């Protein structure tokens, strides 16, 4: 896509994850990822967006070592994930999309197990701190099967943080959780980032990416179609609209207004002017003056701006 590349942010910090030429074709012939180039910067929150089946989870699973790539390379915190998998994986924590937990284990035992599995010496103080941060301390002796879905999600995060990773993948971290818990999760993610952890999250909630992400990547049909600073993306691809509610409905847009990008809506009672959010010249002033000259009065007006969701839908539907 002109104007966009999957590189690092100008003036950004050092890369912590570098993906180069990554491809994944499954045995059934499905190409889940096609030539992915991506750089994640240290200390950022990167949101990976995409519709179901776009390749988000496959990308994460390859970086984490769960799926074998067909081609390409990934370097995590300076370590190749294949040649130097021990060092690479010890830096990475993963919170999977599904609530996969050791049902019969206690919260404490499953978290300490994760720490050991990732090669770290026992550190009860650290595990206790993680559980307290996630409001799980009071339930540390509870069997996981007795916890609610939201609590299980927290347990998965605690397990991922048990070995003190510097890179944390959150695959749909707030899927199926209530609004309050979602807000708690967002706060937690920000605290982790403030503590130096790089966060890569996938989400279906565009609001989540809009709220939290520093940069956004959109993956569609296995291809990374855009990677951009969130604010810049919204500025570049966002649309603004001026909506005028007319005193008298119009049957058609007068020929004298043909030079403006106008549309009629609500049976001719609403006139809509669309323009690029980053455009220096919106044409609003000239339009209002021209409407006055033509005697077209309006009783109300307001403006709106595209959300990240509008941009995302436009990108994946080929209507940027």
């Amino acid at each position, binding site marked *: 896509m002109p104007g966009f590349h999957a590189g690092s942010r100008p003036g950004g910090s050092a890369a912590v994850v570098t993906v180069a030429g990554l491809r994944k074709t499954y045995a059934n012939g499905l190409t889940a990822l096609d030539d992915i180039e991506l750089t994640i910067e240290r200390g950022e929150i990167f949101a990976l967006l995409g519709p179901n089946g776009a390749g988000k989870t496959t990308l994460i699973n390859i970086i984490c*070592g769960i799926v074998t790539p067909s081609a390409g390379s990934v370097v995590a915190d300076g370590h190749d994930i294949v040649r130097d998998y*021990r*060092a*690479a994986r010890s830096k990475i924590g993963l919170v999977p999309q599904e609530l996969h*937990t050791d049902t*019969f284990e206690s919260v404490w*035992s499953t978290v300490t197990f994760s720490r050991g599995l990732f090669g770290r010496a026992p550190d009860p103080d650290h595990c206790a701190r993680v559980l307290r941060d996630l409001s799980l301390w009071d339930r540390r002796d509870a069997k996981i099967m007795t916890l609610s879905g939201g609590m299980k999600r927290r347990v998965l995060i605690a397990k991922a943080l048990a070995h003190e990773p510097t890179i944390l993948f959150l695959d749909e971290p707030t899927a199926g959780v209530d609004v309050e818990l979602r807000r708690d999760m967002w706060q937690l993610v920000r605290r982790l980032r403030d503590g130096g952890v790089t966060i890569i999250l996938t989400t279906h909630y565009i609001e989540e990416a809009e709220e939290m992400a520093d940069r956004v990547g959109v993956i569609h049909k296995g291809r990374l179609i855009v990677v951009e600073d969130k604010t810049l993306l919204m500025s570049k691809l966002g649309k603004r609209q001026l909506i005028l509610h007319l005193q008298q409905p119009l049957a058609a847009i007068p020929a004298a207004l043909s030079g403006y990008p106008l549309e009629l809506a609500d049976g001719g009672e609403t006139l809509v002017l669309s323009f690029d959010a980053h455009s220096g010249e919106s044409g609003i002033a000239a339009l209002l003056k021209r409407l006055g000259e033509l005697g077209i009065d309006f009783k109300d007006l307001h403006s709106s701006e595209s959300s990240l969701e509008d941009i995302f839908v436009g990108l994946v539907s080929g209507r940027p």
Partner: protein
Amino acid sequence: MNMFAIRAIYRFEMARTFRTLMQSIAAPVLSTALYFVVFGAAIGARMGPVDGVSYGSFIVPGLTMLSILTESVSNASFGIYLPKWSGTIFELLSAPVSYVEVLIGYVGAAATKSVMLGVLILATARAFVPYEILHPVWMVVFLMLTAASFSLLGFIIGVWAGSFEQLQVVPLMILTPLTFLGGAFYSISMLPPLWQRITLFNPVVYLISGFRWSFYGTADVNVVASAAATLCFLALCILAVAWIFRTGYKLKN
């Protein structure tokens, strides 16, 4: 070597055993004890000695081996199948552990449980029938080799299985018949000549024969052949596991 990971997996698996003591330990010990009561103390008293050993004593090594084989396979297959089934396998696959470390953790725990069980069964057998152990070192060697080999086989089955039913197919439909027909309850010299030759294709014959030799000094097949067959089986299982890990068969992708 990621010793912390090995320890974590091993302790996790052992904790599962101690959480289910009735199923993991008590049930197999009880069922084997029933064999000793029925075939050893009751029916065995009316049977003549086999290879110079009373029938009750004769079946001790075979029954112990029967439990070790089935429990090794069951423990190891369940140990790796459970995270596959529940989805927690993602954590193992994303951890900085080598396949050897994974194997030491899972198979080590399964083999430990089997050896514990074997010792318990032998102790229980002492209450019902007399027996001796002429070659205790070899007895321990056969016990550990068998536990390790069949725990590896169980690991392979656990990786291969796509359902709980498949998990049970190999132990119930293949291993148990092979063990029953492998000389657990009789000496193969008691079979007609043709069946004696056919029986030699049953790998369990070599395990039971070698194990029984360590008790009484008599064997259906040469003890060196038994040891060689056990080691060959162990090597085959290691090769199969290495292939699984190299290709990611049923674990990745």
